[in-house]
């Protein structure tokens, strides 16, 4: 079986994501249920990457014609986009919060123009 770079990288990313999810579960930052859900989700992503024919099997099992596979793919694409967008927004918010804290710190410290004399 010929394996593409995508088929190699996606399962690796999935493994990292699953490990991370379970580390959060063990640190009580995620519930057991959430851990299972993330494992199933990333497991499916890895399985579809490794065995693309799974999609055909699932679609035939569910009585969906091949054309509808596009809907599945689009759906996954949209979900990935939303998650990516949310991560970006969180990063932005974190940066904004950090900027405010930094500015407040400098302002509250009454930092003047003159050099400090503490030595």
């Amino acid at each position, binding site marked *: 079986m010929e394996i593409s770079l995508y088929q190699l990288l996606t399962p690796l990313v999935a493994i990292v994501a699953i490990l991370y999810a379970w580390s959060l579960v063990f640190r009580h930052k995620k519930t057991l249920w959430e851990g299972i859900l993330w494992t199933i989700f990333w497991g499916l992503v890895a399985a579809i990457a490794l065995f693309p024919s799974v999609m055909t099997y699932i679609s035939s099992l569910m009585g969906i014609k091949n054309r509808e596979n596009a809907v599945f793919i689009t759906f996954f694409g949209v979900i990935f986009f939303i998650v990516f967008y949310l991560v970006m927004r969180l990063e932005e918010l974190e*940066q904004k919060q950090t900027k405010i804290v930094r500015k407040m*710190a400098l302002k509250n410290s009454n930092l003047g123009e003159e050099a400090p004399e503490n030595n």
Partner: protein
Amino acid sequence: MRTIAVIPAYNEEGRVAQVVRDVLKFVDSVIVVDDGSTDKTADAATKAGAIVVHHVENCGAGAATMTGIEAARRFGADVLVTLDADEQHSPDDIPALLAPIEKDEADIVFANRFGQRNRIPFIRRLFNGIGNIITFGVTGKWVADSQCGFKVFGPKALKQIDLKMSGFEFCTEIVRESAQHKWRTAQVPTKVIYSEYTLAKGQSFANGVKTALKILLRSFIR
């Protein structure tokens, strides 16, 4: 040259004072950035002779370091030394780190904890090795101890540096900045003292994974 040391500190009440006193022997001033500590870190640092800048909320080592850098610029620093507040770095190494800057041979000097015989636990060596590989992967620059907080910035680096990352990813960001701005770099072997305390305060595996992912994510969205 006016040399200022920046020490980011989070809940280091018991250790920061001694670090400040030791560092003051080698620099003109010490700025401690109290990163939202819930103990008396700020009081201890002030009593020891440091200028304290206080974050009202814990933002991470990267954010605290950048606040310290901005404060040092306002105080007219020419050279900046950064080091941790947990006594893992020996201030006696500061003159050796300053030497390449004073000789105008480097713009940034990285301490290298692996450059001399130090008792470093295997897990720490492993994590640092992974950190070095990831750093090399996203910056294209190899630094033997990229994740060490002990560094010296020369005038050019101090003027140009602009850290965006708040957490431990900032060490990788500094390497990236050095590559981007083409700073001349030097690496100096230094002593490191790992105690049970410093090991307990270190990053967990989960934190390491989170840091690595943030670095990779940032490398995509920058």
